[in-house]
């Protein structure tokens, strides 16, 4: 099957070459970080987790969001998703793999990672997270390869794949719940100490996942590579709309509790993120932009005059996706650490070294998606003809 990835035109190879180059750039920069020490990043004693862990959280969410196509297709028999479900599963698998890379690069001693399994400590959520994440990647890898393999042979996939698919649904919820539990059980961090964390994570994850899948589908149609069908795209848009509404509703709940109770420790973090504190307002424009994006996406999704303009759909999806990316991939972390336990407004802004590593992992993820989609679509096309 993998030979399919090697048959491509000039455009394909240019794209693959570009992604490979950026991946290697990221890899080299990470090796340098490990040699000189994480001191070359902008991380500090006060903000020990930053861009990397934020990206980790975001990509676990994207991974869990495969559920938005798998569940309707397998459980409710939505035929409209027949063509896109496999693509959703691949996206989920690759995202979680990227999430694992993000944990890896943020560690001071990544070569000792095996200690987590060698000396298992189930009281630590990281222990659970590493297990559920690798389980999820494995599960999806088995499912997608078996399905493709069967399609190629022109036979129905074996019955046990359906069992694995069903298993992957609660599993998808679990990976993001465990990720939320890493953060929301810490007395030290009032910003995260909320039982709404896991539900909020899931709502934003499903929003970003549905939006990204719709975007990818639109892009593939534009490039003339593949058409998942208009109905699938419209359904993804409906899913993104409801999930985004839920997400905004959850966020407003948090805001109400924090600002009506006015417990200083809880107010301070949100003040810092959205307005700035002690003259440090680095994140205020970003967080405001994230809120604005969410509202703009909702407006396009909901207002009939805008909803019917198909040219606006990619914009709405992009707004929704980037709104979640800013809020979760960056704001979530800084908001948790600033102000610090000493009440100090510490400064942290990811530096070039961190962005390079992040770009490397993004490029590597995009490379995996490109290659795996190419294989999947080629196998399908062959089976159909």
């Amino acid at each position, binding site marked *: 099957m993998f030979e399919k990835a090697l048959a491509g035109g000039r455009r394909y190879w240019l794209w693959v070459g570009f992604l490979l180059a950026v991946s290697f750039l990221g890899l080299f920069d990470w090796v340098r970080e490990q040699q000189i020490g994480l001191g070359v990043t902008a991380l500090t004693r006060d903000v*020990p987790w930053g861009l990397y862990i934020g990206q980790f959280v975001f990509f676990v969410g994207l991974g869990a969001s495969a559920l938005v196509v798998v569940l309707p297709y397998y459980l409710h028999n939505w035929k409209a998703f027949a063509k896109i479900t496999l693509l959703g599963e691949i996206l989920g698998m690759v995202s979680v793999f990227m999430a694992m890379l993000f944990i890896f690069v943020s560690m001071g*001693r990544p070569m000792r990672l095996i*200690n987590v399994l060698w*000396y298992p*400590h189930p009281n630590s959520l990281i222990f659970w997270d590493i297990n559920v994440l690798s389980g999820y990647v494995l599960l999806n890898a088995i499912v997608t390869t078996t399905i493709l393999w069967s399609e190629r042979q022109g036979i129905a996939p074996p019955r046990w794949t359906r069992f694995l698919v069903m298993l992957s649904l609660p599993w998808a919820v679990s990976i993001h719940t465990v990720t939320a539990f890493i953060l929301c059980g810490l*007395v*030290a961090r009032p910003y995260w100490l909320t039982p709404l964390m896991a539900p909020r994570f899931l709502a934003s994850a499903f929003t970003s996942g549905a939006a990204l899948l719709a975007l990818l589908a639109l892009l593939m149609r534009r490039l003339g590579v593949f058409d998942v069908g208009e109905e699938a795209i419209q359904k993804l848009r409906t899913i993104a709309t409801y999930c985004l509404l839920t997400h905004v509703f959850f966020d407003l709940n948090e805001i109400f509790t924090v600002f009506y109770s006015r417990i200083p420790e809880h107010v301070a973090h949100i003040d810092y993120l959205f307005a700035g504190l002690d003259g440090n307002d680095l994140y205020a424009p970003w967080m405001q932009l994230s809120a604005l994006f969410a509202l703009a996406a909702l407006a396009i999704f909901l207002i009939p005059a805008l909803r019917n303009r198909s040219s606006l759909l990619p914009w709405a999806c992009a707004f929704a996706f980037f709104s979640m990316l800013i809020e979760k991939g960056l704001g979530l972390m800084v908001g948790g650490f600033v102000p610090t*336990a000493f009440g*100090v407004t510490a400064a942290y802004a990811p530096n070039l070294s961190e962005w390079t590593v992040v770009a490397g992992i993004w490029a590597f993820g995009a490379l995996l998606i490109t290659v795996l989609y190419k294989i999947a679509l080629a196998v399908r096309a062959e089976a159909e003809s």
Partner: protein
Amino acid sequence: MKITRKDFLRLSGLSVLAAGAVRTFEAAKAAGQSAIRPLRGSGGAPRKQLAMAIDLRKCRQRPGCDLCMKACRDAHNVPVIADPRHEVKWIWNAPFAEVFPLEQSAYTERNYTGSPLPVLCNHCDEPACVRVCPTGATWKRSEDGIVMMDWHRCIGCKYCMVACPYEARSFNFVDPRPYIEHINSDFPTRSMGVVEKCNFCAERLAAGKQPACVEACPANAIAFGDSSDPNSPVCLALSASFSLRRKPELGTGPNVHSIV
């Protein structure tokens, strides 16, 4: 042998969850009893727990004093890194308003601003850092309650730093060795990429000595000992004066007391 309900739960398949639930329940029960610190365990003999009481009244008479911090650095090869982002700190001075934000008033502001207030790891009764560590590289020693670290096992995930409500932990962002003023060959140096913190001088206690900071203080401001022994120096110091602990409301049970 009689198997009690607790033993049974611990043995059963759900032992992890069950043990967690029992511990939480007992901790809640114990917190209701009034003692110098909440007693852990099932109400038997109080377990030994080392604790410290720092008499800030004595510290205030020696403005600018940092002898305890110096002694600690020399004993433990703590590097002196100028960049505050990468600092490694075991015991250090912090402003009153930052250490006790909820106690700050016009009075404390007038009287305590600028006066030294040493802070360090609290060797908590219910240490959040230990709960989150995925490798057991940090753990609570049962014989005396010291929260220990194994720098060879630590993977540098920094989860413990995220979980500690006192920011008592430091990550080695750079190779610390070039920044050590005098290398003490009796104590290990650390490598880049691991977390470290105060160890209540476990190595000196084992040799029958007092912690380096306690010994170095010319004003005898630091009382140290077993908080379950009413005649220990720390209990005597605490029963004589009013003291504060950092964020006791979080339930971590900090064992460093400041006599204000």
